[in-house]
């Protein structure tokens, strides 16, 4: 599972950690995040994330 970086604020979504504060279980792939999930740091939408090479 790949990490994804927010192009607005640089937050990195790590699927191993998930986003428990917003109800995302550890182990959730970025692709499986709900479409209305937003960056927990700055509120950017999913389409503003880029895969970390």
């Amino acid at each position, binding site marked *: 599972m790949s990490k994804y970086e927010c192009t*607005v*604020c*640089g937050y990195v979504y790590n699927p191993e950690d998930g986003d428990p*504060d917003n109800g995302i279980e550890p182990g959730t792939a970025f692709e499986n995040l709900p479409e209305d999930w937003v960056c927990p*740091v*700055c509120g950017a939408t999913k389409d503003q994330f880029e895969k970390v090479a």
Partner: protein
Amino acid sequence: MKPVEIADGIYWVGVIDWNIRDFHGYSTHLGSTYNAYLIMDEKITLIDTVKSEFTDDFLEKISAIVDPAKIDYVISNHTEMDHSGGLPQTMKRIGEDKPVFCSRMGHKNLSMHFTGKFNYTPVEDRGSLSLGKRSLTFLETRMLHWPDSMFTYVNENGILFSSDAFGQHYASVERFDDQLKEDIMPHAKKYFANILLLYSPLILKLVDRLKAMNLSPAMICPDHGVMFRENLGKIVNAYVEWSLQRPKRKAVIVYDTMWHSTERMAFTIAEAMGHAGVDVRPMHLRKCDRSDIITEVLDAGAVIIGSPTLNNGLFPTVSDFLTYMKGLKPRDKIGAAFGSYGWSGESVDLVNRALEDMKFNVLFPGLKIQYVPDYEGIATCKDFAEKIAQKLPLEA
């Protein structure tokens, strides 16, 4: 005003904006300052600039210390235009080839503000830069309060240039916390409530991070207002306290009114809560500025919103306030709604829905009174107030 030497060879070269009263919608009753700093070392270094219209004043201040052309390095801690607006004019005087050190996001964001192709030199989080006798460490503080925000720390002097964090919109000739007779904290609190509240979780993490780094700053120098040299713990602890958002036995009653009926309800609720030992603030939305209301909301346990129904909807100022409050994400608050109406009475439900959306603990369906509250209506308001008071923490 002349530059102020804040430590050996380190100067405040900011400007005072005595007359600003509206800072992008935030009421600045006492003006503000745009702080920038100059470090005289083997590499002469400028930290931040000022709002563009103050650039002449700013360059004059620098010139009282050194010819701007001799500046070697520029550091941009924050892209927002009250700190970067003067950059193009300043770079013309300094030399457009000189490096502008900024965070990676700063590079990206500055490039979207200015057409000039400056020599942006992104620095890493915890990266360092030697100026000769002194060295700087950069700390990225993303989303405190923009993606580009960073701190610059002078290791040898223990000076933390904290960008907008710990700032206050307060214009004064005095430049330090210990010089001000008036307590600066209410202004720091207002700044926190209106600019940083939504980033409370990040602030708590940042404070932990600073502690883990074992920095022992002797001075905190924000980009607005006074610098802290006497009581650094006070402002840092206040930031922790505000970030924790511990609800107090305090209620803010935010309302508007058309024919004083919703206002009568507001005052009745306020008095009843006051009698129940609650610190209560009724705030009329056309008499109080939204940024002053939010400052009161910061440590309140309850936010009680009163809106008349106008044309089947919310009163416009109430919508304005709800939008503003939603963005600032206050946590752990009790919410309640009330209002007078003529014939349809949608406003109370609309307020409740908005408060639920903000994850407020909404206690009741809300209190609606048709037209003018009568004796029974007033009694209902008292009961409503007492029920909310019972749910508030006992601690003031």
